[in-house]
């Protein structure tokens, strides 16, 4: 399979030769590495001293977490297919992939809401223990990023359908894949290995 960023020629470039918008997204993600990574490493450090967290973690819903992982991995596939379609000038197909990606993001949010309701009604609130504080802080921050991604995909999808700024599909895609990567690590930390 061969792809080319057909729209790159119209994008302004920084001195590095990388289009400015794409470089900006990578800098943004570098800062996000510190935010999410900071939460993850502090959790790991605390967990080393609190083996009793394993008991708390048994009450997370592993099936829902695994289902949401499948949903996000699939949404990454549809997102990269949207980018590939844009590169080939197939904007209608790209629009369909973007809609599918946003819908999968919506499914992720619904499943997460189901989990929250189930856990809260069982008494596992953010103040129950330090584990649950970490759980809600990290999954809540991640869910906010998913929500932001859904909004961005819809806005950029609208621009693309109007024939404007089609190169931004790649940018929102890079962001969306990052959100997927964060979940790739959150899932085993909170659901499988605690």
């Amino acid at each position: 399979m061969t792809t080319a960023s057909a729209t790159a020629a119209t994008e302004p470039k920084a001195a590095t030769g990388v289009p400015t918008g794409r470089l900006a997204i990578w800098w943004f993600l570098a800062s996000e590495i510190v935010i999410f990574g900071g939460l993850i490493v502090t959790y790991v450090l605390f967990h080393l001293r609190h083996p009793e967290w394993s008991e708390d973690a048994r009450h997370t819903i592993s099936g829902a977490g695994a289902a949401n992982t499948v949903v996000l991995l699939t949404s990454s596939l549809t997102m990269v297919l949207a980018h590939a379609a844009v590169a080939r000038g197939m904007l209608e197909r790209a629009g369909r992939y973007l809609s599918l990606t946003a819908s999968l993001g919506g499914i992720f949010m619904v499943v997460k809401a189901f989990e929250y309701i189930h856990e809260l009604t069982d008494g596992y609130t953010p103040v129950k223990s330090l584990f649950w504080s970490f759980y809600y802080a990290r999954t809540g921050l991640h869910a906010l990023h998913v929500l932001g991604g859904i909004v961005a995909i819809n806005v950029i999808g609208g621009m693309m359908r109007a024939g404007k700024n089609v190169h931004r599909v790649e940018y929102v895609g890079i962001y969306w894949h990052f959100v997927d990567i964060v979940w790739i690590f959150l899932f085993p930390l909170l659901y499988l290995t605690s």
Partner: protein
Amino acid sequence: MDPKSGANSHRHPSYIAIWVVLIVALFASVGLALLHQRRLAAILIFVLATIKAFLVIAYYMHLKWEPRFVALVVAAGFLALAILFFGLMPDIVHVYGR
């Protein structure tokens, strides 16, 4: 890289094949969680998570074909994270943990 447009023209594996690998790795992780040897299972699960993240970064985010400068930007994020980690570790593990 196309010298005129600056665009990345490259060949890469099928996106769908990569998705299949990601899903298989996910189910392998879920299976490993059932092992009785918890420590070994945790190590293997995080090795698989790292492989999944690498596949997404390299092939879906196309970092594999970006100029080296972009990889340095990502590395800067991880360097800042490492500083945070080693800065916090004494407080959390040796002070708070007592």
